[in-house]
């Protein structure tokens, strides 16, 4: 296998692993946050404005962990810096 193919293969596999493993934690955390918010809403319906706003903000902040993984995998797939290295004849 020549270096370019090897780098492409490893990049694709790593991109898949990145988004797969990286989305487990945020998924669990978002579920937990939503469950707690529902419980709080059921107990205190008067505070629904504050709870909903805080929920949205914290969901977006939890989600940013998964977004970082997504950005890394997109960089690996579409803007891989190591593809140019092999194209220039280096590496290997």
């Amino acid at each position, binding site marked *: 296998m020549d270096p370019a193919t090897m780098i492409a293969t490893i990049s694709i596999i790593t991109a898949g692993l990145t988004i797969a493993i990286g989305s487990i934690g945020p998924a669990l955390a978002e579920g937990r946050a939503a469950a707690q918010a529902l419980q709080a809403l059921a107990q205190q319906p008067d505070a629904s404005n504050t709870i909903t706003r805080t929920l949205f903000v914290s969901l977006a902040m939890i989600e940013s962990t998964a*977004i970082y993984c*997504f950005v890394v995998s997109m960089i690996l797939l579409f803007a891989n810096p190591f593809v140019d290295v092999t194209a220039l004849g280096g590496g290997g």
Partner: protein
Amino acid sequence: MEISPDAWVLYERRGLQLNATIVFTWGVMALLVLLSWAITTRLSEGETVSRWQVMLEVVVTTIRDQIDEVGAADPARYLPFIGTLFLFIATANLLTILPGYQPPTGSLSTTAALAICVLIAVPLFSITRRGLRGYLKSYLQPSPLMLPFNLISELSRTIALAVRLYGNVMSGTVIVGILISVAPFFFPILMQLLGLLTGLIQAYIFAVLAMVYIASASRTQRKNDPEPDAEHPRTSREGD
């Protein structure tokens, strides 16, 4: 596939490149400036108030209330900066309903520039409020051992601000692009609706986080100098 509007060059002449990011940023800026100019030249204090003025007043007072809720002592000081950040990002994200428009916040250059604005604004607001000594002392706050961690957190939260906004907007664009080739017509519209919601929430989060950083850096210590406005009076508000 392109993951950034930077690569889409609209105009090129003698080494001068105008890519989609710059053009759409100028478009959003022009829209905001023209709209607010047209409204504020015809402000009235009388009994009849134009509906545009009502809209602007609602926007400005809501932003000021939100800044006040985060815990800044003096919302009017921070209103121009925070309000501009929120309105620019929200407009840039919401204009995706226009066909052919690429949000400039989907490019890492724009979001990095916005995050650097926050990075510079934090010490500026803090120094004008507490003085240079007070600002530098905040780096040694719990103990001098924490100095490197404070410096690292200053940098890492700037990068996190930039990448969070970029990743959210860019992922919306990429997912719509993938869905158009896989399942056209229906699902891309749903994802774009979701993208409008995400864009607005991200604009809110960016502004709130910038305000939290500024407020935590420019808060005066309570035990050392008993200023009257250090313990700002919290006005009670019903609902939101």
